[in-house]
């Protein structure tokens, strides 16, 4: 649906009860068996959102269409994208991963080598640190959808070899503290990762949702750094240098650093704070009176989601939503709340709590800590206003005294829509 068009989701009576074309498929043979399936032609509007304002589609982000998805695993074709020089077309036969630097034995692995090691499959969310940037806009963007509010998160089942195994295979030297992973894209994208995290739970992943990782997500091999910002989870991974000092690469200094309310710039803000978003009913949808299952997604980089609360009265009272499935650590969980809408205007919102006791701030609380010109780690509560006509729009308040901002990010930046 085009921005500004409301999507009526709760269909009432059809004009004629029996639709004319409903039995046509029973009169003709359907599609034959095929070697590789595709989705229905009627689903072609379920796509990632790409801002029309990007200067180049070779750098930027596309957003997962959260309000059109069910369950918790993001279909790989709709996993959000973020890259800096396009998606490289890596030939797996020529693929190699080299581990070198402060190691006993520099080692080179083929893709088949990596697959021979003991494997681990885990479901983890990956979220761009820039997710939620539209929340910086003031006054709030009244055309906001759940996709554009929080669609830079996705959740996949990742299979790979623990990086710790590869590092032990190469043998770490005394004094090794940091890893510098590098991508095989045209930007040779690079970051610094503390060895401790790598030895804890980082995966060198080669499969996503049961099959080879998708090109946009790092085919054939990427780092998965559970719970940490997406930008550190280097894709198209070709090289890991073991060092005693971080590289201070462009994307951990001039990008992915955080401007705080006191004017300081914080480096290495890695963990993704708890977050939640109501996907139904959400911005630009339209509902009718009666029963609705409020649905949404929640996740935290600190561990398991413990609780998600829903408010149906603009944040005055909060009710506990049910969670499905039983929350996995560092994975997206779906929350649900049964609601009968009486047809009166109201504002609904959700907030997530994780097992470490962290929760989401209000916008005011968020901006007490972070500067209004910051670009990352926005995780304030997203509100949706439901009008008496059933139309749903952004329910965030206009912040007094805050500078008007059209977009939260420089052109070409992460999640940028400006």
């Amino acid at each position: 649906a085009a921005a500004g068009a409301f999507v009526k989701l709760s269909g009432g009576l059809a004009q004629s009860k029996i639709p004319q074309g409903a039995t046509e498929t029973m009169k003709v043979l359907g599609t034959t068996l095929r070697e590789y399936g595709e989705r229905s032609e009627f689903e072609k509007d379920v796509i990632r959102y790409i801002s029309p304002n990007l200067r180049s589609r070779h750098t930027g982000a596309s957003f997962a269409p959260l309000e059109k998805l069910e369950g918790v695993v993001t279909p790989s074709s709709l996993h959000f994208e973020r890259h800096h020089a396009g998606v490289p077309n890596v030939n797996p036969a020529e693929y190699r991963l080299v581990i070198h630097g402060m190691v006993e034995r520099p080692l080179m692995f083929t893709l088949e080598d990596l697959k021979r090691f003991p494997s681990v499959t885990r479901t983890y969310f990956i979220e761009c640190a820039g997710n939620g940037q539209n929340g910086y806009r003031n006054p709030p963007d009244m055309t906001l959808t759940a996709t554009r509010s929080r669609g830079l998160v996705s959740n996949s089942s990742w299979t790979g070899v623990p990086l710790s195994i590869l590092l032990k295979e190469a043998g770490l030297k005394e004094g090794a503290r940091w890893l510098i992973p590098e991508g095989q894209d045209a930007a040779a994208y690079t970051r610094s990762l503390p060895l401790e995290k790598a030895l804890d739970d980082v995966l060198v992943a080669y499969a996503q949702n049961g099959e080879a990782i998708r090109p946009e997500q790092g085919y054939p091999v990427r780092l998965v750094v559970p719970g940490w910002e997406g930008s550190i989870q280097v894709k198209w991974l070709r090289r890991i240098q073991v060092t005693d000092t971080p590289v201070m690469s462009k994307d951990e200094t001039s990008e992915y650093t955080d401007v705080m309310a006191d004017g300081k710039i914080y480096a290495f803000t890695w963990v993704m704070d708890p977050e939640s978003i109501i996907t139904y009913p959400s911005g630009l949808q339209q509902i009718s009176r009666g029963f609705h299952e409020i649905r949404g997604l929640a996740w935290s980089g600190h561990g398991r989601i413990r609780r998600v609360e829903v408010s149906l009265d603009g944040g005055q009272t909060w009710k506990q939503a049910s969670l499905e499935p039983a929350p996995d650590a560092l994975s997206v969980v779906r929350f649900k709340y049964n609601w009968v809408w009486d047809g009166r205007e109201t504002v609904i919102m959700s907030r997530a709590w994780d097992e470490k006791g962290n929760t989401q701030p209000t916008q005011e609380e968020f901006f007490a800590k972070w500067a209004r010109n910051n670009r990352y780690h926005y995780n304030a509560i997203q509100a949706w206003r439901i009008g008496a006509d059933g139309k749903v729009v952004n329910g965030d308040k206009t912040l007094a005294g805050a500078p008007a901002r059209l977009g939260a990010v420089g052109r070409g930046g992460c999640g940028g829509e400006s």
Partner: protein
Amino acid sequence: QGRYQIGTPLSEQEVQQWNIRPSILANGVGLPPGQGTVDEGARVYATHCASCHGATGEGGAFTRLVSEPFPITKDVDSVDFAIGNYWQYATTLFDYTRRAMPFATPGILSDDEVYAVVAYILYQNGIIDGSEPMNAQTLPKVQMPARALLELDPNTQKRFPWIKLP
């Protein structure tokens, strides 16, 4: 060999063969031999960079590379963040330029050319005076104004007490 005996050991020379865009650490480790001046850099810039970043770095189709030579405040819009007011390490400029620029044809510059264009950009930002050529000795000594603003995230510091920003 390790426990699994999977993977091919490489010699240091073979590692170098693979390491086509070596990382430059903030302490200068990794900087190659060679050097370049601001004037040489102006020519490199005009040939390879100006079409995207503006005639003198003021921005064009893409990001501006030049700004006022004092760090941002919390009220500066992030579209205005740039090398002079936001970048904290001069080494990053060498690392990034050699690794990722020119955008559509990365890897075409010689090390001398990278040193030169880095000198030019730092000069345009008012950070160096151009009296010395840029090389492995001079570059790590360049102080970036925004470095004064940079701190380690306190939560990260709590979890990794040993981390110190270069």
